[in-house]
């Protein structure tokens, strides 16, 4: 495992990532130009009335009266300086707004992705080792059901069961407001609030990883080196974990990287269900309030996150599988 090979992979992925990132900025900007009404309209609407002059003043203040190309250039210019613009609706810089919400979403996504990978790989392994027998069939059916359930609906059903009927877990929010908890209690409180949203978000991906782990493990198990491993007297457990599972993990990591964007999208809905203070909810609020700077910022940040995660996955793969060459 040479460092130069890894840096080669890094360079290659960077070359691919930069044009995509630029394309995304331009796409988002053009998209939002098509939107009817702007922030000035919304503010005027909320104020109840506005004269033409006030509207013009508002537009001038937000730079909405400039030609499209100038607005794009101004946006790109600000972006180069690390600024995402100013949100007229929240009356604060978009970057600050996003920075407030980002940790919540990352925490939620991280937890649900780990949950999904852990459960999915475990279930997939059980399925592959029992292929064709009843545990396989049972989990197969279960995973297909998980795969078909809308995340927001299972979220609501979990609330009915665990919050309304059983009263075990809170139904929304990120922490108990006004409880004044500290230290371990506060941590536990936060964990209790995260459990249901993370589970609702994870369910779909548990199904995918279980199925994929099963399929790849069966594929790997039929290869020659597994027969060799068995022939030289390794225990079935050793063969299953060290030889089959390890080689089956590669496609699973690829897919997990590709799902990052999907989970971000799922977070929009799940965060709405659980009133979780995160990016997804912010995006939804921004759409409703026509706050384009915020929306652009969220979209851009989400997409950049996806690009970064993809690069990390590429590097991880190059590390896991030495056969992957720099092309």
């Amino acid at each position, binding site marked *: 495992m040479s460092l130069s090979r890894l840096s080669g992979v890094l360079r290659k992925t960077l070359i691919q990532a930069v044009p995509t990132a630029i394309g995304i900025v331009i796409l988002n900007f053009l998209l939002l130009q098509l939107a009817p009404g702007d922030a000035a309209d919304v503010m005027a609407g909320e104020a109840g009335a506005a004269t033409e002059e006030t509207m013009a003043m508002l537009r001038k203040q937000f730079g909405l009266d400039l030609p499209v190309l100038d607005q794009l250039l101004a946006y790109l210019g600000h972006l180069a300086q690390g600024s995402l613009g100013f949100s007229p609706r929240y009356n604060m810089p978009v970057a600050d707004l996003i920075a407030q919400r980002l940790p919540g979403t990352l925490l939620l996504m991280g937890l649900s992705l780990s949950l999904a990978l852990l459960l999915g790989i475990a279930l997939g392994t059980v399925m592959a080792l029992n292929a064709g027998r009843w545990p396989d069939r049972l989990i197969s059916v279960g995973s297909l059901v998980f795969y*078909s359930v809308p995340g927001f609906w299972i979220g609501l059903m979990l609330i009915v069961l665990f919050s309304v009927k059983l009263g075990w877990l809170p139904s929304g929010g990120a922490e108990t407001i006004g409880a004044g908890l500290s230290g371990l209690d506060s941590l536990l409180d936060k964990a209790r609030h995260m459990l249901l949203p993370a589970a609702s978000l994870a369910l779909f991906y548990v199904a995918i990883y279980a199925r994929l782990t099963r399929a790849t493990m069966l594929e790997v198990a039929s290869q020659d080196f597994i027969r060799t491993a068995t022939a030289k007297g390794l225990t079935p457990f050793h063969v299953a974990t060290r030889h089959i599972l390890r080689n089956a993990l590669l496609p699973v990591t690829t897919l997990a990287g590709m799902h990052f964007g999907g989970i971000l999208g*799922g977070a929009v809905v799940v965060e709405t269900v659980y009133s979780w203070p995160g990016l997804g909810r912010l995006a939804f609020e921004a*759409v409703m309030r026509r706050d384009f700077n915020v929306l652009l910022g969220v979209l851009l940040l989400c997409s950049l996150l996806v690009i970064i995660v993809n690069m990390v996955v590429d590097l991880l793969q190059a590390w896991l599988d030495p056969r992957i060459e720099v092309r």
Partner: protein
Amino acid sequence: MGVIERSLSHSEAIVWAGPTSEPLVLPGPGFGLLTNREDDAANAPDAQAPAPVVATAPSPSNGQRALKAFLRNPSGLGALAFLLLVAGIALAAPFLYPDDPLAMVGRPFLWPGQNPEFPLGTDSLGRDVAAGLVWGARISLLVGFTAMALGVSAGIAVGATAGYFGGWIDDALVRLTEVVQTVPSFVLLVVLVAIAQPSITTVTGAIAMVTWPMVARLVRAEFRSLREKDFVTAARAIGSGPVRIILREILPNALSPIIVTASVLVASAILMESALSFLGLGDPNLVSWGSMIGAGRELLRTAWYLTAIPGFAIVLTVLALNLVGDALNDALNPHLSAGR
């Protein structure tokens, strides 16, 4: 199944090795791998089909074999029957419940079974839940299938052009596909629908706009491996133009992974539509399963059946679509399912 049958028998005369597709985007064992018919016949598990041992025996075409394999799959058949039932109910909605499903017809908050006139109960405004469910099926299926058709067509157009021509066209289209695919699709979907104002047309169009890249990648990979095959060279040699080669020669041979993807796309389109409606970004003048859940959500503590019932409808329909997709995958890629 007619389409599959015709398209696959087209490839019969030509021996071609299995194109390998890109790493799977979808779950499910090895997508899009086809081998030539001779291989299939040789590898087919004897228990499943009597393999034509005698060389002179007429062997069924790939399409017929796939159809037979599909018909032997009980879960796939059951799921298909259920889908047909849902489609039948959706079509019959104007006869089953001729009145506006948004009209108030009874006492509010009747639980299911409380009043035989409203078997599934009524909501907070006294609207019949069963009527909403039946009319909602129309929206879900309409959006699901239309969005799939649009997305698959766009994906085939982009993927076939990129894969067949290569060069700078390929580079540009791949770049575009990558940009759209990198943006989290549900976030993009929300933005598109919010910009275009929610209506059934915009929702359908927006779902197609976020799903085509998946098809495009798949089709491109298939085309790239198929365009170098002898039968394409032969077609080129006899003077066929690119459009004819793409549509008549390569596409039919790339169809089976596309068909499997299409069935999964309908399922995900239905899920997306329901999530949008749940968020209040559906067509405001129509009942859909998602909007019923969105309305029921406010009353989760007292009347959770309002949320549960339309959710079950979504789960069952999507589950049926996924089962059909699985069965199609097994039927069209038989060597993969052997022994599993």
